[in-house]
């Protein structure tokens, strides 16, 4: 069985979203977000695209067949605002704002 790694916990923490917030935005149950984050469930292609689009990233920036390098430790991990438009790959801030 192939393993699919994802950066969902890191991205969710960076955006300062709760599982409920993310689940609501993606149209899934918050338990499903938990299973995805723990790698216990592999999303459909459609849901994987939804997740990537939500974070304004390419799908391979969220999901990978190889482990992602560990996220850099920084103070104040949770963002209070979604990443700005000037950052690369962040072109859907409006959708993120809907869930707050």
């Amino acid at each position, binding site marked *: 069985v192939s393993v699919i790694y994802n950066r969902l916990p890191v991205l969710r923490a960076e955006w300062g979203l709760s599982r409920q917030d993310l689940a609501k935005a993606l149209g899934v149950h918050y338990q499903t977000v938990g299973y995805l984050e723990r790698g216990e469930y592999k*999303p459909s292609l459609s849901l994987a695209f939804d997740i990537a689009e939500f974070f304004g990233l390419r799908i391979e920036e969220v999901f990978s067949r190889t482990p992602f390098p560990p996220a850099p430790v920084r103070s104040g991990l949770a963002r209070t605002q979604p990443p700005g438009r000037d950052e690369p790959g962040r072109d859907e801030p409006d959708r993120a704002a809907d869930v707050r």
Partner: protein
Amino acid sequence: VIPQGSEPVPTRWTRAVGPWRRRIAAVYDSDRFEALRGPRARRVLVVIHAALVVAVAVGVWRQPTVGPGLAGWAAALIAWWFAYMGLLVSVRGITEVHRDLLDEWQLQVRDAAYRLAHRVFAGVAAVAATGFFLGRRDMELAWSHAYGLIWVMVNLLVTLPAVLVALGVVRALD
């Protein structure tokens, strides 16, 4: 009418889910029942439900000579109903609610639960039928015996998917 693209043709099964079904699904998913959703609580609910099913079956089997009386039957059936509802709530009703109200992970769990429940039920029914057939010479069968068996089999058929999800068997398999 030829459907355009991949849009499915609505049928009686795929029509929009009404408010009543949404309300029931919301009750199943309510955070008020979080205490019933731990692994231990789920196991306890399965045991209580199974004990009540067996108790009612034994009562029916032995009727009318040693029945518990009308009040006893009513109490047993009410307790059984609460145990059954508790079981459904403990698995957020994912084995019962309309598929449009579930997400893809929940649908996978439900499909796996029904697939396994089908096999388990077929096995139990085959063993029960064989036992019944082999033992029929040693007992006098009455309608009450048949009712007791039907009660157990119907309960198995209806609750087995939820039981398998509650026990975590399905997740372990997939």
